[in-house]
């Protein structure tokens, strides 16, 4: 929270500061990276921008939705920041439609940067044939983390899919441990279901369902299999799961009280803070019964239409700096993500990140995150349905599919 209050203070101080010279390259950046690891990662951007001769004005707003709301309100109100953070996906669609954002096409083609980005990321930042956002990282959303000591204790090998995992979960349960460390909040209930769907249906069903809202995909046997597995998992979580924060669930795995957790690669920060090494005390794996896949989410920065020449220059410099190979690696080390560029050397990253980079080297494994394929309203409506299914053991798979079909029919 210190960084947030510092940001608020600096914002006040800046408001009181005399107007600066037009020559100075100043970038005010609204973002929501306030936790320890996140602000360390953000500092990489700030330092590199300062090295390039600019002045970084930090404006951290705690909470993604809050930060986006603040940034959107200022942009609509005619007092835009230099740059603002969004998740890679559809969150900034309407800003583009209302001509509030500057395109970054020229900057991206100048450095030949478009060629080194994965296709899903490119698609998620392109509107009307031009790029409107600078992607800065890739976060894998469908990782499975497990405690190696617990795995040795219950006896078994690293699971490759949910069928194998269920066997191990039973063993963990028999050993009196929490089989699946779970945080019962809507967003993670959604994350768990989506991870299972990718395992059971592969990238094909995934893009049909989220990308085309296909009713057939929702009625497919793969989708039903995912729902059945999801329902089974209810009996592998502990009583304290509802409302638990994701990092408290990770802590259960770290302490050896629980066997495994499904969570994005930001969970690595928790393991690192506990001085655990990937591959030694804990393992990371990706499930895939049908073609696997790596769910690529992440963050982008968008640039509101600049009001002055100096602001335009600051935006161009910022975009260039963020995508430099050196920045990309330093940032990924701190953030737990992987570089957004496919052409940087990731050998200095941990083994999970190295595995991720190898996986997405294969085009067929690049799975766009739900945020890239469906609107926040749609994602939210699906989330409500998942959440009610997860928390209501009496609901049948048929009823669940019926409700999903109802959501798909809505214009969201």
């Amino acid at each position: 929270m210190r960084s947030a209050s510092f940001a608020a203070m600096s914002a006040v101080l800046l408001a009181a500061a005399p107007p600066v010279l037009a020559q100075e390259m100043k970038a005010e950046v609204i973002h929501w990276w306030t936790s320890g690891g996140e602000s360390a990662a953000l500092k990489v951007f700030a330092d590199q921008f300062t090295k390039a001769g600019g002045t970084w004005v930090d404006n951290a707003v705690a909470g993604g939705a809050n930060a986006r709301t603040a940034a959107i309100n200022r942009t609509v109100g005619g007092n835009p920041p230099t740059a603002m953070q969004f998740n890679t996906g559809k969150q900034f669609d309407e800003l583009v439609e209302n001509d509030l954002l500057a395109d970054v096409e020229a900057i991206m083609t100048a450095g030949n940067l478009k060629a080194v980005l994965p296709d899903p990321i490119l698609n998620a930042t392109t509107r009307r044939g031009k790029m409107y956002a600078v992607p800065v990282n890739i976060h894998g959303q469908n990782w499975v983390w497990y405690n190696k000591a617990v795995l040795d204790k219950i006896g078994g090998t690293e699971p490759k899919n949910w069928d194998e995992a269920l066997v191990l979960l039973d063993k963990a349960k028999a050993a009196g441990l929490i089989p699946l460390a779970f945080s019962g909040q809507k967003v993670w209930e959604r994350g768990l279901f989506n991870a299972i769907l990718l395992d059971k249906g592969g990238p094909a069903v995934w893009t049909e369902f989220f990308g085309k809202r296909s009713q057939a995909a929702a009625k497919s046997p793969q989708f039903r299999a995912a729902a059945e597995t999801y329902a089974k998992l209810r009996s592998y979580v502990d009583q304290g799961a509802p409302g638990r924060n994701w990092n408290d669930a990770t802590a259960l795995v770290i302490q050896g009280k629980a066997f495994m957790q499904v969570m994005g690669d930001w969970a690595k920060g928790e393991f690192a803070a506990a001085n655990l090494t990937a591959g030694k005390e804990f393992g990371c794996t990706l499930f895939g019964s049908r073609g696997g896949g790596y769910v690529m989410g992440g963050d982008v920065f968008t640039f509101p239409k600049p009001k002055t020449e100096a602001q335009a220059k600051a935006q161009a410099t910022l975009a260039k700096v963020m995508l430099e190979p050196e920045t990309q690696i330093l940032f990924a080390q701190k953030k737990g993500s992987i570089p957004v560029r496919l052409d940087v050397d990731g050998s200095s990253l941990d083994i999970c990140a190295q595995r991720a980079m190898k996986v997405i080297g294969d085009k067929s494994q690049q799975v766009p995150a739900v945020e890239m394929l469906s609107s926040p309203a749609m994602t939210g409506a699906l989330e409500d349905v998942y959440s009610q299914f997860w928390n209501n053991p009496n609901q049948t798979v048929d009823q669940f599919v019926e409700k999903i079909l109802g959501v798909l029919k809505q214009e969201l």
Partner: protein
Amino acid sequence: MKPHWFRLSSNRSALSALLPAFLVLVIVYIGSTSWTIWISFTNSRMLPNTNFVGLRQYDQLFANDRWLTSVHNLVIFGGLFLLLALALGFLLAVAIDQRVRNENSFRSIFLYPYSMSFVVTGLVWQWLLNPTHGIQRLVRGWGFPDFAFDWIVRQDTVIFCLVLAAVWHAAGLVMAIMLAGLRGIDEDIWKAAKVDGLPAWRVYISIVIPMLSASFATATVLLSTSVVRLYDLSVAMTNGGPGVASEVPAKFVMDHLFERANIGLATAAATSMLITVIAVVAPYMYWRSRKGGRA
């Protein structure tokens, strides 16, 4: 008889004094409310637009499980919370009114919860009620392994946890209002009741409570506003979970305004809330105006 110009100018000064308040009322309240109602007839998403779609948002709203659950929860919460907070507040006031020693300390202790924000209240109760950290674990640790107090993680009981926390929060306020009312009751009434040989509980039920009707009305109005606004308690305690079991209408509106970028649906929900409140308050206002403006 004052000269004509004087009356005019006093009217004018009164008008100019009231003008700022009047402008705030018209622009901020009525203006924003009208705008909200108008937006609920459009298909606005992240940013407000003016594509008229009629009642489509309302159709979607009342076909939405989560919204129906939210409304249902608000009715249950509102009824229980009003009843329990009034009853408990009144009983506390009666207890303190028995000339107890250290009355001031008791008053402060009972009123203290009200000085906490709902967010703090929600967090504290969340910890107390959490089966793996709170009361259940404590009692099991004392050697009762079968003790269960898991209301907050069960869908059918979670709403009572919200009521519990809210009653704890508000009972002290009701107590303060009732105590002031009790102190205003004439000693002679008690003496007369004693002479007639009435037991104390009869006096309270048949004489004191009717005399306190104004205090009850005040407390009810104050508590009702926090029922309609109920948002932060749900967010802090359960974040609407498990599932959507403790969702409330205000949270539905907030989530859809921002997180879900669905302003059309959010404003339709907000308008429905407004209509409901008007439907409840209007008959009461009419009744008051017929009574000649005395509550």
